């Protein structure tokens, strides 16, 4: 492949967000007709790089240059890059469920004149395109009536309708089952024969090893290396080493675990997806938490960690099928969030802004919002106590705000996270489930939050940390469960934990076992 001409070259791309350098001097070379994989941990900068390429972040908002088909390209928006034949297919499909396959394929790109769609042409071309991607369906079928795998194919057909030269697929198989994934990978190989170049971003390293010609590995917003799969004899282990290759230096405060008895146990937990009833998001999962223990949950995005946690937290996700929860040896039934809070559970969500906080609130209102009963009498909130309690947390967690009257929108991500932690510490929980507690937070604040987590454990509380950052889990947790497709696939003690082992257990079905 190395002999083929270069189709795309991105040179020293740097992209900064306020306070964060998402990409720093990244280089990417893609040759015509190859399948080029991009790998890296969550937050390594893969998606940002693709957004730069496709014009989501227009020319001028980043530095560096993009050479495409030999000339420098300055895309002002997605339309411009699509016009040049670069089409990106996102993980969340951009299809309209209530419209037909044909309508979706030509959405925004309708054949016809003067705004009047020529359905004859549209239908004929739709049939052609569907044949090209191997989609056997009536073109009038509505999107919502076909499976995710076929929807993915519609997305690709849509890309083909735009005369694609460079097809970018972001986690294309994340939501697909084994057979659909295989079909998609075969399809990619077929495109290669037709001379279409593809970039594939995937967490499934076995797929990369199987289908890609070359791979670029990103870490912390930098290019680590570009490898030729065949020439360099790259396998999964090699990729993992590249992805997690950093040293795990002391990013964690000192902490001596004082682990007590098992006080929390989940058995045979099975939950259905809230909408598609045939999908199980948790399958016969079971685990335990000891007093004073920090337990990690490792898994890829979409593995079902969040779903598992939320379904435990008062059934706030999915439909309960079976399973039991024991606390201090007694079975407890948590039918609502208030039940869960009453029994000493707390759940800090992964998405602070969407579901963790009311962004219209001020700090004090947020901090007491999960247990108003603690500071109210006959339903009337004692505002003096509210202020005092909030003020205590502001000081002890070192929330950077002048007073607790400040609106939470004005805080940085790290300080918002501290407010959310305070909100749940205020409920006096025995078990805290922290979902991605350091997502989108800078290094300094991360250190502080690790400290808070450790202090909670030292107080004898159980803490579950869900994280996509393996070093974080390894550095922080006493014990780690790996989760894959809703099943707990392994349990690893701190002393045995290393990224490669974790990644393998997180990514492969073969090693999946019923816990």
């Amino acid at each position: 492949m190395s002999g083929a001409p270069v189709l795309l070259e991105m040179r020293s791309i740097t992209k900064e967000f306020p306070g964060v350098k998402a990409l720093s001097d990244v280089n990417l070379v893609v040759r015509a007709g190859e399948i080029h994989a991009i790998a890296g941990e969550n937050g390594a900068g893969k998606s940002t790089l693709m957004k730069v390429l496709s014009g989501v972040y227009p020319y001028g908002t980043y530095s560096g240059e993009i050479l495409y088909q030999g000339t420098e390209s300055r895309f002002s928006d997605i339309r411009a890059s699509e016009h040049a034949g670069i089409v990106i297919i996102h993980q969340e499909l951009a299809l309209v469920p209530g419209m037909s396959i044909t309508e979706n394929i030509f959405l925004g790109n309708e054949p016809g004149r003067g705004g009047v769609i020529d359905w004859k042409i549209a239908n004929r071309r739709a049939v052609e395109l569907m044949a090209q991607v191997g989609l056997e369906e009536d073109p009038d079928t509505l999107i919502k009536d076909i499976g995710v795998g076929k929807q993915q194919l519609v997305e690709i057909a849509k890309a083909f309708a735009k005369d694609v030269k460079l097809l970018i697929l972001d986690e294309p198989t994340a939501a697909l089952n084994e057979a659909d994934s295989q079909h998609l990978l075969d399809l990619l190989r077929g495109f290669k024969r037709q001379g279409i170049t593809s970039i594939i971003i995937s967490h499934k390293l076995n797929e990369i090893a199987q289908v890609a010609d070359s791979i670029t590995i990103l870490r912390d917003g930098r290019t680590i290396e570009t490898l030729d799969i065949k020439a360099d004899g790259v396998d999964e282990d090699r990729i993992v080493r590249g992805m997690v290759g950093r040293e795990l230096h002391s990013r964690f405060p000192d902490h001596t675990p004082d682990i007590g008895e098992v006080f929390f146990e989940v058995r045979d937990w099975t939950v259905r997806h809230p909408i598609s009833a045939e999908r199980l998001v948790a399958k016969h999962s079971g685990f335990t938490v000891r007093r004073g223990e920090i337990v990690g949950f490792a898994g890829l995005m979409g593995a079902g960690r969040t779903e598992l946690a939320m379904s435990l937290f008062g059934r706030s996700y999915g439909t309960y099928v079976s399973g039991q929860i024991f606390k201090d040896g007694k079975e407890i039934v948590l039918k609502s969030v208030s039940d869960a809070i009453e029994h000493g559970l707390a759940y800090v969500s992964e998405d602070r802004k969407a579901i963790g906080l009311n962004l219209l609130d001020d700090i004090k209102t947020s901090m007491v919002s999960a247990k108003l009963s603690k500071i109210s009498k006959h339903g009337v909130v004692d505002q003096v106590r509210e202020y005092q309690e909030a003020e205590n947390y502001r000081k002890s967690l070192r929330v950077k705000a002048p007073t607790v009257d400040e609106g939470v929108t004005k805080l940085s991500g790290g300080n918002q996270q501290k407010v959310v932690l305070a909100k749940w510490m205020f409920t006096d929980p025995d078990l805290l489930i922290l979902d991605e507690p350091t997502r989108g937070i800078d290094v300094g604040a991360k250190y502080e939050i690790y400290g808070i987590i450790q202090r909670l454990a030292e107080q004898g509380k159980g803490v579950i940390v869900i994280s996509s950052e393996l070093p974080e889990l390894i550095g922080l947790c006493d014990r780690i469960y790996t989760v894959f497709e809703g099943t707990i696939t392994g349990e690893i003690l701190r002393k045995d934990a290393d990224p490669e082992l974790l990644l393998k257990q997180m990514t492969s079905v073969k090693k999946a076992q019923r816990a």
Partner: protein
Amino acid sequence: MSRVKELQKSLFGGTTSNARQFGMIFTLVAIVLLFQILTDGLTLNPGNLISLVSQYSYILILAIGMLMVIVAGHIDLSVGSIAAFVGIVVAKVMQEYSVPWFVAILIGLVVGALIGAWQGFWVAYVGVPAFIVTLAGMLLFRGGNQYIGNADTIPVPEGFRTIGAGFLPEVGPNTGYNNLTLLLGLVICVAVVVREWRGRRTRREMQAEVAPMWISVIRIAIPLVVVVFASLQFAGGRVGTSFPISGIILGVLVVIYGFVTRNTAGGRHIYAVGGNARAAELSGVKLKRVNFLVMMNMSVLAALAGMIFVARSAASGPQDGIGWELDAIAAVFVGGAAVSGGLGTISGSIVGGLVMAVLNNGLQLMGVGSDRVQIIKGVVLLLAVAFDAYNKKQGRFSVIDSLMRPFRRDTPTGAESPAEAGQERGKSPVAG
């Protein structure tokens, strides 16, 4: 911190919504003064103030309920029809079964609660959007009104009329004023002072910064001047008239609901649900119950408003309640609530309602026809909201904020990420 900044902060609080509220009060004062001049002093004359209160108290009562509905992220289009329905039911039971008027009022409230439970059930437990449920309710109860009343106008007895057309009675020595109204004014004055004093004590207990004494003096003095002036005006109306009973009902409701929304767990939950329903749910708020109660409460208040109007009109008629929902909704939005929920206060909505009421009344006093009054009100509502949206887009907070620019506090602490800014913009609050 300069004195001006300090004054602004402690008079109106540090939060943005309070700043907006100040803007509304400012607008209200400006409109009152404008019309006072344009109408040769008729606007603040006792007779006009009295009729202003009795004409708009029922709309303002609706605005209280509507504020809570809108804060929770819903809307209620059925209030006018519910008011008309309850009105006709109450008039009918008094006419046909000679039910005493106070029992009839209870019946009216119960009917309102039942209707509210009906609507709340669909909104909260079935999950039909409130817009649809109340649109259906609008038709349903309008039809119900006509079915029961045969589109007739049914008179109500004298006793019942008190809640809509009654005044504080004349008692005690002849002072040249209505004594009870003066007493009421005095009570409010005392309440203002006590409230400020208790506020200071609370701040001390919190070990929070207590505002300097001179600020407290201003915070007491301004309301006192207004209250004294108002009570003299209301007490000085024609003999037999004074502060309207419907105004007292309104006042009591404002105090109660103001307290509930600000200081109780239930009130907090309404804001939490409207601000971020999923976050509220994950904090243990019982979403369905909150939605149910908010919708139900609205209908009870609509029932009350309907009865007050019937009492004032001395009869229940087929055209009662038409268009009320729009007046109530306008009051709430002019008063600074956000279309997307989670923002807004009772007092803001009352001020918003008063702005619209004074505008209406002032234009009528000037002899402007109702066609043009409607046009002007429409334009004012649109501009109030549009100015705010425009200024927000320009990165400024709001029109009020720009009025307040000289007193502006420092820039917000900490940088906002683009996503946050976007989210804030999505919550575009409405103010004038």
